[in-house]
Every structure is written in structure tokens, then in C-alpha cells.
């Protein structure tokens, strides 16, 4: 990767964070923490890894994304808007009556969303089905699955993981957003997930852990071709990454703040954007 490419992806990630905060600001509350933690992964996926065409969003042989932690919708919507799937202004309709942008991802409402998610754990199995369907139909493409580290409490996740490895679904890439927190607090206090990399390796994956905010590392991990085992990437991330006040808030799963607070958060992001472009 050239330094120019790295910078471009970092800028894209920053734009996604700005879009996410603006999207949530429009409603005054939303799932900010887990949206910001996946912004870099989304930037690398949609910015350089995935074969997608916003003008042809249902192209059968496209790469697909299942954001099983469906509450990260705002970050995915910001990514899709920036990619041109729909006008950027639409981001300001989050959770308004009759909106196309509900809290949780919905494939029937939002252009570019490949699978409906929200009931945690379920996106793992649907992603498996999509990858299996692509394989059965001879399509040369991949499905990327983002799972939350709190979501991983769900037993269905491990059913799907076992299936992925047992049936050698190498066209499905698991990304675990290891941001260490869930709604009620730290995952290690609520239901300790233990060593996720070891767990996935034991389930039959080619597993690794990377800095989930390092676009170079993300690019390297996401472009690696799977051999005989499917790939699982544990993303070491910070819940609320990119906005200091959110990072420092213990309960940052969903936050309700006044417009002036959102503006402070945005100022921080805009300042960083200016510094980046200086």
C-alpha cells in the first residue's frame, strides 16, 4: 500500500465517523459507541477491498457485507452514503417516521444493505447462507461478516462458526469487533469471552488479531486469500473510537446528548480532518 492509499483510507474512515455522528445527531440519540469502533474496517472494506458497484447494488457477484451487530447501522449508512448508494442528506432521516434508515440494518429499506440484522447472532447464520449460496452458484465473490464481541454471547454465533469451518466456507470472512464493551459494561464482567483468537482457531479458523483502527493492517488482513481454512479477524478496537468524549464515557453503547455536545464531537473530527489535509 502506498502512503497515498493509506491516507485516502484514513480520510474515508474520518468521513465515515463524521457521517455517523451527523446521522445520530439528527435524531439526538443512537448507537454511537459500536458504530465508531467499526468505522476503519468499513472504510477499508468499501474503500478498497470489496468489489461493489453503488450504481448496481444488487449485482449478484458483488462482495457482500453482513453487519450482524445491526445497531452499527449509522456507520454502515454513512459509508454507503459516502460511496454514493444514496444522497448524503438521507443520513439525517435516521429513525424518523417512515425512514429508510432504521436503527438496525434492513435490506428491504436501505439501498446497499445486503442483510437485515438486529436480533443479535442471527447475521452470522444468514452470512453463512449467503456465502454458501454464492459458492453453490459458482460466483467468485466474498461475504464479510462483522460480529460484535458482546453479540458473541449468543449461542447461534458458535453454531454458525462451527458450520463455516466444517464446510470450509473460505469465501466468508469473519470480523469480530473486539471493542471490549457491551450494553451493560465490560464484556469481561458481563460474560467473559476469553481469548477470542484462540476460540476461533479452535473452531477451525485461520484466526488473527489486528489493530482494528490501523487501515494498513486491515487492508493486509482483508485482502489475504484464505487457504483451506476460513479467515477470522479479531479487530482490537475501542468503543467510541475517534471521539474522545465518547471513548471516555463508560456507558457509550447508546448515547443521548444535546446538539451542542454533538457539535463539540463534530468539531473534534473536523479539526482532525483539517489537520490531515494541511
Amino acid at each position, binding site marked *: 500500500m502506498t502512503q497515498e492509499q493509506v491516507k485516502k483510507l484514513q480520510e474515508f474512515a474520518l468521513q465515515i465517523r463524521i457521517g455517523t455522528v451527523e446521522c445520530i445527531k439528527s435524531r439526538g440519540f443512537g448507537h454511537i459507541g459500536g458504530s465508531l469502533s467499526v468505522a476503519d474496517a468499513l472504510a477499508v472494506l468499501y474503500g478498497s477491498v470489496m468489489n461493489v458497484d453503488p450504481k448496481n447494488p444488487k449485482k*449478484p457477484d458483488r462482495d457482500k457485507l453482513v453487519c450482524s451487530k445491526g445497531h452499527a447501522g449509522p456507520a454502515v449508512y454513512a459509508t454507503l452514503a459516502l460511496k454514493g448508494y444514496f444522497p448524503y442528506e438521507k443520513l439525517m432521516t435516521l429513525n424518523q417516521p417512515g425512514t429508510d434508515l432504521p436503527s438496525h440494518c*434492513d*435490506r*428491504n429499506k436501505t439501498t446497499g444493505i*445486503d*442483510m*437485515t440484522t*438486529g*436480533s443479535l447472532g*442471527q447475521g*452470522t*447464520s*444468514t*452470512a*453463512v*447462507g*449467503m*456465502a*454458501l*449460496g*454464492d459458492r*453453490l*452458484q459458482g460466483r467468485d465473490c466474498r461475504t464479510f461478516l462483522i460480529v460484535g464481541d458482546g453479540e458473541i454471547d449468543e*449461542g*447461534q454465533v458458535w*453454531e*454458525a462458526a*462451527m*458450520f463455516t469451518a*466444517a*464446510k470450509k466456507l473460505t469465501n466468508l470472512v469473519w470480523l469480530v469487533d473486539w471493542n471490549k464493551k457491551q450494553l451493560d459494561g465490560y464484556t469481561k464482567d458481563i460474560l467473559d469471552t476469553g481469548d477470542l483468537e484462540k476460540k476461533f482457531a479452535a473452531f477451525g479458523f485461520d484466526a488473527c488479531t489486528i489493530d482494528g483502527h490501523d487501515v494498513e493492517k486491515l487492508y493486509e488482513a482483508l485482502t489475504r486469500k484464505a487457504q483451506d481454512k476460513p479467515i477470522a479477524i479479531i479487530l482490537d478496537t475501542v468503543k467510541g473510537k475517534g471521539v474522545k468524549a465518547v471513548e471516555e464515557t463508560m456507558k457509550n453503547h447508546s448515547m443521548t446528548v444535546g446538539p451542542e455536545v454533538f457539535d463539540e464531537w463534530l468539531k473534534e473530527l473536523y479539526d482532525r480532518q483539517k489537520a490531515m489535509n494541511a
Partner: protein
Amino acid sequence: MEIVYNGEKDSRMFNAVIGGTIDALMKEDEKVVWLDADLMGCSGTAKGQGERYINCGIAEANMIGIAAGLCASGMKPYAHSFGPFASRRSYDQVFLAGAYAKNPITVIGTDPGITAAFNGGTHMPFEDMALYRAIPEAIVYDITDVPMLVDALRKAKDLPGVTYIRVPRKASFQVYADGTSFTPGKGAVVREGKDALIVASGIMVHEAMQAAKALAEDGIEAAVIDPVTVKPLDAELIREWAKKTGVVVTAENHNKIGGLTSAVADALIGMPLKFGHVAVEDVFGEVGPQDYLRERFDLTCDHICRVVKELKA
């Protein structure tokens, strides 16, 4: 619709028919996929060849999610387990990954109600139709005989909603001619009669026909309607015959709550008539031979006769 009912048992086993029909569908339509949860030996698909027969292991929730994902990728999946696991165990997956996300999967639940027999109460779904009826746009079949099963399996892959087919594994009593074409939401008048209407589904159609025969000997001419699908329900047909007869009795191998009895009662709200039911009285299942269970839960032609006569008295 040609009725061929003669009260004699069909020699064909339902699960063998499932296996044969799915095999034929696989050859006709390359999008067809069969998913099973370690019960291929029960669903008649154990000899299925090729990568489109997928054994998911004992993981029904995952299986239903995979079916939904396959649907989204353009395939036409059928997923099978025993009724309780095809409904209760995987309900949120059917509801959200299937129906809500507009992935019209087909789910086959075998051993409905008392047909679970020796597997007992843990395996005896008296509530599967209630659960599936509560899913918007779902289509719910309570299979009566082999021709209905074949037609339901053939049509389900192209139906617009999540389709649930509840069907025993063993043999049944043939009611319809082979090759009969059914339409979801269109019921069948299996027998005409002016004095009472019995609305029966699944294995209870045979009991209703036996009851109608016995009632005729006592001078009561009972009509028998099979709704084919409990959802959508052919309310128009049932209301028409309810009006003609003034007495309606439902008969189902299911809890009286949420299944055929509830659906028919909904359809008849506001009509001046007498209404009774033959159904499981909101209790759990238990183990035993099917003949014992039929008596235990009063799912018999004798009980249908009793209820009709009480209402006629």
C-alpha cells in the same frame, strides 16, 4: 376437486414422499436446496445426493438463518426438523431472518401433535401452527394426504411468504386424487351436508369423515371442509357453509389456542351460529402409542360426533 376418500389407509409413507418429491425438484430446479438438522433419516432425504443436500447438524437456529441467507442469494431452500424444533426452537430466526427480512424460506415440521407418539411431550408440538400463524405473510399448511403434500412441496419454493408445512412421517388416509392442484387460501369441500359443518385439517380430516358417516346414520348430514392452509384461511368458504348449516365444529391435532379453532372462530365472528371444537385443551403432550394419544386428547371421530350432537340438541 376430485375426492377419492374411502377410509382405507394409503400405502405411501409421507417421509418417502418428501424424499422423492425433493429429489425430483432438485433435478427440475437448480436453485432448490434441502437443509436438515441431523434428521435426514427421518425426513426421507438420507439418500439425497449432491452439494444441495446440506446437513447442518443439530443446530436448528443456524439452519434457519442459513436458509434465509441462501434465499437472499437466489436459492430456494427447504429446511426440515421435527415440528417443535422447526417452530419453537428457531422461531426468532424464522420470524426475522426469514419473514421480516423477506426471505421466503420453506420450513417442514414433521411429527405434528400426537403423531410424535413415542418421542413424547418434548417432541409434541401443539403450538406450531399458532406460532407460524402469528408471522405476517406466512403460509401454514396442515397436510392431510400425499397429493396435498406433493403439491405443497412443489409450490412452496415459489410462494412469496415463509411457508410452514406440518406433516406426519407415516402413512395417511388419501382424500384427494393424485395430481390435485391446491391453492393456498382455498379450502376444499370434502363432503357436503346441510345440518352441520366440520372444519378439519391434517390427520383430523379422516376423523371428520368417519364422524360424518356415523352422524349420517343418525340423520345428521354434516359437511366437511378442509382449509388446506390454516393461514391464509378460506374464510369466505367457511362462512358460506356456516351460513348453510348453522352449526360449526373445528377438528385439529393442535392446541385449541392459536390454530385452526382460533382461525375459524375469527372468521365467524358476528355470525349467528353454534360453535364447538375438537382440539387439544391447552395441555402438554405426552408419550404413548398414537391410538392411545388420540383417545387421551379426544381427537377422535366419536368426540367429533358428540360435540356435533350436543350443538344440534
